[in-house]
């Protein structure tokens, strides 16, 4: 898949709360095909403390409008700087990067936690287009840590789990009533402990499971070898060979 370095214009910015915001980015030309689960490397403008690009997963794609949406959690100085950008400003992206979700399975479960919700919207749209029945389970510590909810409704059965019970069922996603072995494929993205718990469950039940990892990275294209995960075939680059991996490739990662 060809990669590009391109300027986008921020067409719309939505601030959900102090943790989350989204940017709808528009390009004058038609966007290339973007797989659900791929990511972009965003240049962080205007902060001398931030030199490297930041990897951000692609939340949504509208190929008719030539737009792509990034859902971003403010976690450090890079994302804080990005949160100060305004509509009309320019962002430089290297994209689309990595390998996305396989989109296999006929009855699938999507499990997202926190910022890990981001790639699941594009995935649920793609699955819907293929006629796949999807159940979408979104979790967070509190209600405000699940910023995007209604957007998922058209694409499957949606459930929420919060640790304080402020939205949906109280508890972890793995304790939710929709979390079961009734599926033939599970896709998950979110905090590492959550993904490991989901992957362990899937392996036990013999269900195919794909996890989307988020390691610190520099280049985003498989050159610097900084973002590796310990796979069963040795170190793999999350940026190039991931960010989506079949859990079966990552038994060391799941156990440790």
């Amino acid at each position, binding site marked *: 898949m060809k990669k590009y370095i391109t300027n986008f214009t921020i067409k719309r910015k939505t601030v959900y709360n102090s943790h989350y915001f989204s940017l709808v980015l528009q390009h004058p030309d038609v966007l290339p095909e973007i797989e659900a689960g791929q990511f972009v490397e965003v240049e962080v403008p205007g902060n001398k403390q*931030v*030199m490297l690009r930041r990897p951000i997963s692609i939340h949504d794609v509208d190929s008719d409008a030539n737009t792509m949406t990034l859902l971003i959690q403010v976690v450090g100085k890079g994302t804080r700087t990005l949160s100060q950008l305004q509509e009309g400003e320019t962002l430089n992206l290297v994209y689309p990067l990595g390998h996305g979700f396989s989109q296999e399975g006929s009855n699938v479960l999507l499990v997202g936690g926190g910022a890990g919700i981001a790639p699941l919207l594009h995935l649920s749209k793609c699955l819907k287009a293929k006629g796949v029945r999807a159940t979408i389970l979104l979790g967070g510590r509190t209600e405000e840590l699940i910023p995007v909810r209604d957007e998922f409704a058209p694409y499957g059965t949606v459930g929420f789990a919060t640790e304080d019970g402020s939205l949906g069922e109280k508890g972890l996603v793995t304790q939710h009533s929709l979390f079961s072995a009734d599926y033939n494929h599970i896709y998950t993205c979110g905090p590492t402990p959550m993904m490991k718990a989901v992957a362990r469950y899937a392996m036990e039940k013999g269900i195919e499971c794909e996890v989307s990892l988020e390691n610190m*990275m520099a280049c985003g294209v498989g*050159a*610097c*070898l900084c973002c590796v995960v310990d796979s069963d075939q040795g170190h793999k680059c999350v940026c190039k060979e991931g960010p989506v991996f079949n859990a079966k490739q990552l038994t060391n990662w799941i156990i440790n």
Partner: protein
Amino acid sequence: MLQTKIHNLTLKNPVMTASGTFGYGEEFADFIDLNRLGGIVVKGTTGERRQGNPYPRMAETPSGMLNAVGLQNVGVETFCKDVYHRIKDLDTNIIVNVSGSSIEEYCKTAAMVGELERVPAIELNISCPNVKKGGMGFGTDPTMAAQVVSEVRKIYHKTLIVKLTPNVTNVVEIAKAVEGAGADSVSLINTLLGMAIDVEKRRPYLSTITGGLSGPAVKPVAVRMVWQVAHAVQIPVIGLGGIASAADALEFLMAGAKAIQVGTANFIDPTVTMKIVDGLEDYCNRHGISDINDIIGII
């Protein structure tokens, strides 16, 4: 206008890519025309396949980054059998960075790479700060540096570049030692040994605690060392360390480097090497310079 020479190598321009920051070149083929580069120094290659160090291997620091990749690579056999055939038809100088933990390992790798028709040079890495055995150990002692270079020189007959570490009291002493042992060129600087601590987690950012600092933060150190070495040795010097623009490259050229390498900047802008080539040409045009060699070493 931009053509320059490193020993027997003719470079169409002085802009090369630094080992470990540009993969095997292929990773950047979507962004730039690789054939416009003066050279590509491919990922550090060792006698056997290496897994490198555990994650986390990088941390961003002011105007730079620390890395502790630790020479993860496919090993020389896979390089020769597989990778080489994918890149050998590029119209640029493909230089293999040869790394190792022992003189035998350096020699094995150098000998195998020496058989590859389309690889006119190796860059002997006696300066990696991120491996426990060998690596920088060879590059911080003039006697050991000379020993590894002279052993490799016996079995490697093409252009032998030796990559030097800045983590020494006197870089000139090391440069002279490797020149005396038969090096055709030296490249400098490799990364500066550094460290950063996550105070919230109360632990180092890197799994290896220390790592190599690169990026604009190291550039003044690199320019100084290139200038010192260029005045002390007869062999051509290749300068690197924090180069991110044509102006940065020109600093190194004026300090005495016959060619330069771009490293960390490739991560930030995958097209930066082309901007540097264009910028050098523009500089020459603006200043009425017909041959870039006219400004090399003017300081």
